[in-house]
């Protein structure tokens, strides 16, 4: 032990502050949160009491459904769209540089700001309704953000605008990593464009797709800011519900719902790694 310390004291000194910080400010709080969810209001052990209360609340059950729906739909939708855009940006065409810059632009825009923009667009007297009205598609304005399926789609669209650039960038890097010689070989062998896409591009893109899916899914499950701005309590998500309970002073209920959220995220990651990815994409990324 002493020899180890003597040999590596410098390395330990460098790595200690960050490690201690992670332990104290990330790992410890998450366990405190889990612990709190098993306590009653006075801090005594209460087993599953908080969870029973939680699952009896229709608002919370709705928040679980909403979170799953938005995560799964936005994942598929955003990945497909980002792949399409990445493939288009790989092509040589006039004005590609400008299009690339425009597509990547929202990456830096604060989520708060994208939420404000979505409010202007999808508000009841907003610009989306106005365009529909001018195209004679509707005669009375549609309330987009007051709840129901419509509001979920509004959230998905607003989220897509914000995260598309990151996804495009990740997939572009993946596409760039596929050597041109493979495509040339496929061309010489007479493979069609569709065949090339499904037999070469997609399989070789798998590591990038895995990275993107995991990054996106975690963020989508935790979605907080956009619903908080756009729909408030009208459409609950697990994270915003947890905040509602916190704001109402029910700390243990808030802890319980954020623990449920943690379990949802872990389950998804596990299922994805085991069933769809089988450990290929992540380890060899």
């Amino acid at each position: 032990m002493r020899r180890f310390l003597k040999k590596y004291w410098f390395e330990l000194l460098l790595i200690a502050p960050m490690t201690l910080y992670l332990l104290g400010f990330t790992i410890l709080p998450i366990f405190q949160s889990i612990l709190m969810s098993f306590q009653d209001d006075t801090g005594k052990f209460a087993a599953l009491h908080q969870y029973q209360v939680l699952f009896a609340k229709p608002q919370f059950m709705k928040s679980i459904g909403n979170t799953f729906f938005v995560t799964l739909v936005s994942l598929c939708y955003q990945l497909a769209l980002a792949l399409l855009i990445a493939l288009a940006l790989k092509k040589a065409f006039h004005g590609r540089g400008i299009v690339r810059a425009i597509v990547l632009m929202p990456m830096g825009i604060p989520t708060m700001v994208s939420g404000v923009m979505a409010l202007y667009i999808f508000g009841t007297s907003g610009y989306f309704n106005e365009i529909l009205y001018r195209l004679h598609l509707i005669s009375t304005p549609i309330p987009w953000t007051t709840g129901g399926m419509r509001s979920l789609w509004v959230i998905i669209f607003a989220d897509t605008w914000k995260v598309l650039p990151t996804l495009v960038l990740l997939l572009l890097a993946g596409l760039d990593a596929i050597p041109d010689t493979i495509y040339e070989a496929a061309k010489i062998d007479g493979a069609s464009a569709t065949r090339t896409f499904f037999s070469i591009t997609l399989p070789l893109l798998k590591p990038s797709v895995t990275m993107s899916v995991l990054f996106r899914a975690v963020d989508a499950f935790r979605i907080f800011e956009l619903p908080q701005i756009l729909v408030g309590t009208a459409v609950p998500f697990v994270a915003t519900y947890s905040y509602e309970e916190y704001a109402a002073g029910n700390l243990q209920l808030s802890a319980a719902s954020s623990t449920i959220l943690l379990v949802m995220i872990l389950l998804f990651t596990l299922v994805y790694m085991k069933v769809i990815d089988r450990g290929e994409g992540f380890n060899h990324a």
Partner: protein
Amino acid sequence: MHNKVHLSRVLFYCGIVLLCFCMVAPLYLLIKVSFSAPQEVNTAHPTLLLHHPTVRHWQQVLTSGNLFKPFWKSLVVATSTMLLAVFLVAPASYVISRASRHLKELYVMVLFFTKMFPVVGIALPISVVFLKWGLLDTNIGLILAHLIGQIPFMAWILVSTFSSIPRDLEEAASLDGCSKMRTLWSVVLPVAAQGIAVSGLYVWLNSWNEFTYALYLSLTTKTLPLQVYYYVQRGGTFQMAAYATILTIPVILVTFVMQKYLRSDYLSGAVKG
């Protein structure tokens, strides 16, 4: 055949134009609203173009005295978070990048794992503890909280940066009699400077935009995003637009500087052997 090729080309460009429109239109609307006369916006049929430009809302926001405090708080918190993050993460990332493959993968996996924790789950006990410590509404408290979200990502980028620096450099330096400290300071750091700068700017941006921890840890003081949120809740259409624009301007400046250096393989680099 020729016609078919022609048609697909037209469709391709239509798609590109539609895409660009969707990306740019919201930004246009934001700025448009902040310069619009109320009768253009507060009606059932808002105008798409700017007919009666006015700087009234901007004057109001700039002279109301509510701008400077949140702006300053956001600036101080974002800059301190960035500096602290560099001091915490850069040395540790260097050590991780030089560790054995096994150890390195383990640490990177732990970092990814902490990224999966829901922010609301961390913010709750943190706010309880900070209440005890009297850190609510303080800059220090917010800086400490912002670091939580930023460390894993920065470590990720920096581990991959340091990994790409060949060890031969350090070995040569130590053969020449440099101490470990000296090697790190005058050989490794200069080569890694660009990666550190980019990741630092990235942290600055995220802290500038951060909303969740700020919401949990602020009672009376506000950061800029909280100020925007305040007007969202009160339905202050025009203040919201002006404040959101103010929030965005530094971001666009920083992104512009960063874009030249931002490499997408930073994300995947750390996982490579």
